[in-house]
């Protein structure tokens, strides 16, 4: 008699445990749904400017204003999407358009007319002014290079295919 009673009690206890387990799993699930319903709009709200600048960065070609008037030996800064870029009209008549973000730690680089090289003031990185190749200092990679198409009335800078 007493043996069967304990068996029933044990059975009941098992049922209770599983019911409790079910309840806490269901509550956890509902809680996750609420967390997601709150976090998703908040995440999208926070990332709105990121999405905007990503959309701006997706451009493939830019026409820097008045670049066609740039005389040989002069350079200008322009915006390629969200990034600063450097357009150089070399003395020999060739053009170079380079990403102006140092590959070392992201400072904006500058063209030095007197040395005909690109210099990063933050940590002394030096790049070749025609190819963007990293010549000395800490930069690990060359500067990104854009293709330049010069016509009668505009200079068009295009993202190169190989990326």
């Amino acid at each position, binding site marked *: 008699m007493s043996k069967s009673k304990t068996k029933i009690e044990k059975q009941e206890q098992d049922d209770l445990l599983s019911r409790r387990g079910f309840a806490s799993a269901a509550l956890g699930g509902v809680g996750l749904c*609420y967390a997601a*319903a709150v976090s998703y*709009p*908040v995440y*999208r*709200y*926070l990332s*709105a400017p990121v*999405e905007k600048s990503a959309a701006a960065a997706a451009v493939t070609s830019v026409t820097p204003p008045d670049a066609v008037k740039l005389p040989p030996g002069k350079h200008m800064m322009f915006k390629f999407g969200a990034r600063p870029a450097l357009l150089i009209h070399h003395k020999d008549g060739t053009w170079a358009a380079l990403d102006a973000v140092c590959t070392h730690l992201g400072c904006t680089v500058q063209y030095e007319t007197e040395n005909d090289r690109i210099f990063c003031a933050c940590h002394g990185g030096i790049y070749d002014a025609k190819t963007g190749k990293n010549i000395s200092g800490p930069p690990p990679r060359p500067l990104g290079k854009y293709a330049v198409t010069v016509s009668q009335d505009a200079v068009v800078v295009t993202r190169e295919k190989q990326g």
Partner: protein
Amino acid sequence: MKSVFASVFNWMDARLGLQDLLHLAQKKTVPVHRQTFWYYWGGLSLFFFLVQAFTGVLLLLYYRPGPEAYESVRQISFDTNFGWLIRSAHSWAANLMILAIFIHMFSVFFMKAYRQPREFGWWSGMGLLLLSMVFGFSGYLLPMNELAFFATKVGLEIPASFPLLGAKMASLVRGGLDVNEYTVQRFFALHVVILPALFLPLLGFHLWLVQKHGNALPPEEEDKPEAQRRTMPFFPNFFAKDLAMWLIALNILALLASLFPWELGPIADSLKPAPKGIHPEWYFMSSFQVLKIFGQWFPGASGEVIGMTLFTLGLVLWILVPLYDTSRKSGERARNATYFGLLALGILVVTTTWGYLAIR
């Protein structure tokens, strides 16, 4: 895993006394009786305040006070992902917070929970309500739309009508002789720096007092012998019910904010006449209507002064209730205080309804 958790807990406990807090939470009880429902409204007010802090910080990321105020709220509402929802939730939760505080205040009043030793709970609560209304008034201007412009103009005319320093004070608050971009900048500083700096310590004090004294019993429960009173443990019973109320509040807020998004309206323009039917937010409607009535009874500026004086006297009487309704027994004084509460509630309801009917 469990032993790691236990050893981290022990390490923290030895330094912070967490065990004491747990004991406190386990020992704490909440009275169960016919009026237990009203115990949730302080927690609901707190919930809406937390929503305000959270959505407020989010709005702060894109809002620009000063001359660009309207344009930045326009961008939040129409150009930013879910910006309309965050702004709508902030506006709706502001109203729901004031509503919850009003219900909390009246339930405390009618349950006579302000009596010894809870006087400071009543006073800190009244301070929190008044600060919340200043929060509402200052936040209302920030979008710098047409309604905000006139609401602030009218609101600041009230202190300006006071004799002696009134006009000077109003001009100082406005940062000019008319509502302009300096007013927005000032109200912004008030809304996001000064008011939170005052509100948060007062809220901490209020919550500490609630923890210290526990829930007050309404007089009819107090008359019962101790053996007949029922309680529930604070943790987990009351805590779980509190959470359920917060969840209901969140659902209502989500429905209101998404189905009835808060409008932006046209930009403030000092050359445009006030639109017909313009009226303040509902929680200022009563005082707006009282001023209007007194303005009709006593033409000229004296009407406003008389109305404001009476209103202020009533408020002072209301705040001082723990000092004149002190008896634990339900005698004549206790009855008079209840009548005063009913009168205040009646005036509030009648003048608010009157105000809404008058603008239709």
